[in-house]
């Protein structure tokens, strides 16, 4: 018996494989659809299914709530600051590590991956402990430091991949033609990196906006959006408002990923694509 290999290299799958593959995709999206559905639910206690009716009422309620608006603003601020720091540090590290190999290079890469590879609870506790010993009061600053620490590797992965594809002779040519370091960076390196840098930045933003575990340790009295949500889940009240906020958070974390994908299509790859 021969396997069904078509000319294009794509096999024609059996119905079982087709079912399993599409079933897997449905499994991944079903809970997300439920969140979208429940945000428009008319009920006060939105745990029953199917929903009795649909309304936009809870959106206006949610946006009238001081605590919700504050949490959104705080999370946006943290994500922006952490992303900027991660972009600077990640680009510096990528520029240093992409071409030359030297003693300790492997450990440097490992050090950048560790904050995201080790369970968040370890990173969180370690940072909290470190801040305590330095006498830094937990607050916005400590949250930003924590987020930036694990966002660096995301930017690094994207930028280093682009650096490897950028010919070094471009940089040498620029220097030969009389440009100084800043000009070379501004007119040669940066335009080359821009889309990779932007994609990495957006992923870092999404990661920071949603981060919960490290944040619980470094937040002190601050309540960014994921913490606000967790608080609602452990003590359920205002279910409709929670549903609306949940949908918004989901969209804010999904849209940057989509944009990053579109930006880095065509030969380039986003972190995690594994190609």
């Amino acid at each position, binding site marked *: *018996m*021969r*396997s069904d*290999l078509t000319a294009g290299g*794509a096999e*024609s799958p059996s119905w079982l*494989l087709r079912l*399993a*593959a599409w079933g*897997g*995709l449905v*499994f*991944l*999206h*079903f*809970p*997300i659809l*439920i*969140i979208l559905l429940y945000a428009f639910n008319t009920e006060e206690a*939105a*745990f029953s*299914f199917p929903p009795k009716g649909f309304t936009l009422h809870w959106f206006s309620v949610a946006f009238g709530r001081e605590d919700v608006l504050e949490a959104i603003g705080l999370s946006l601020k943290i994500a922006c600051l952490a992303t900027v720091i991660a972009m600077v*540090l*990640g680009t510096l*590290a990528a520029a*240093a590590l992409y071409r*030359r190999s030297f003693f300790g290079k492997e450990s440097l890469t490992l050090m950048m991956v560790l904050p995201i*590879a*080790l*369970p*968040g*609870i*370890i*990173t969180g*506790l*370690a*940072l*909290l*402990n*470190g*801040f305590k*010993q330095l006498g830094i009061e937990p607050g916005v600053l400590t949250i930003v430091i924590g987020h930036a*620490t694990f966002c*660096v590797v995301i930017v690094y992965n994207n930028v280093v991949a682009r650096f490897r594809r950028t010919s070094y002779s471009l940089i040498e040519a620029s*220097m030969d033609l009389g*440009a100084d*370091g800043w000009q070379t960076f501004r007119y040669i390196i940066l335009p080359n990196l821009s889309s990779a840098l932007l994609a990495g930045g957006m992923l870092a933003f999404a990661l920071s*906006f949603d981060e*919960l*575990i490290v944040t619980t340790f470094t937040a002190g009295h601050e309540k960014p959006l*994921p913490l606000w*949500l*967790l608080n609602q*889940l452990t003590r359920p009240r205002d279910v409709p408002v929670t549903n609306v906020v*949940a949908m918004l958070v*989901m969209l804010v974390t999904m849209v940057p*990923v989509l944009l990053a*994908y579109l930006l880095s299509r065509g030969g380039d790859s986003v972190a995690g694509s*594994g*190609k």
Partner: protein
Amino acid sequence: MTPPSAPTPMRRIASMLYRRPNFYLLLLLTPPLLWFGIIYIGSLLSLLWQGFYTFDDFTMTVSTDLTLQNFVNLFQPANYDIILRTLGMAIAVTLFSALLAFPVAYYMARCCSERMKAVFYIGVMLPMWASYIVKVYAWTLLLSKDGVLYWFASLLHLDGVVDALLQLPGIGGKTLSTSNLGRFLVFTYIWLPFMILPIQAVLERLPPSVLQASADLGATPRQTLLHVILPLAVPGVAAGSIFTFSLTLGDYIVPQLVGPPGYFLGSMVYAQQGAIGNMPMAAAFTLVPIVLIAVYLSIVKRMGAFDAL
């Protein structure tokens, strides 16, 4: 002809850096090195060091007398149970997500047009990146009594099946949302994309000629799958399992929101440092996932996981 003008200061710095690549490298590396070295590695080491401090049960205070007692305490039956419970869940989640991920990855890698592959790729990336806490929240809605799953079960007249599942020892419970089965489903759902992508990447790199050779030599598709494709996909599964294993091991939000009472490693660390205030014991507990993950990494490294990352 005019003589070349004197180089600007910026230009002089640029040439100087070009001639001293090591200095330039150091300059580039200093900010990230300082950041990670001081903030991250420093905190991490200082945390682990606290595992050797002494906690006084009566005064509830920490003294800096060094002791190994905290690490010995990890092997008390109660603590040992926590480690085994978490480890068991991490292994179960890893195995089941590999099972679910394989067909999706295979279909993505080998049976799709380029267009469809992009659809699947985004279809896996979006749930992977969608907010963690919102995904957990969605599952509390799905699993709750009168929730979506119960509704579907009764629609399909499967209430009996759900009840029977919940009667099973070990995985059962009063309702789906307080059972180990529910917790297991949530974990599997959340980490599944991390398993799909590496397997897909490995399968995509399989040369078609290998499969053709297998078929030409008389293997049935089933034999090709078992003896050619699966062994070659092992590095991808191993790479994916790093994520499913270590992420489950350190999680403390899901065990808190879904499933029966009883500590997980993460929730124990959280309780020790927070409510109980025993930082040395919390620090000792953080060593458990670190050691387990290190052991796990050394195993999967032999399976070629790092080449597939």
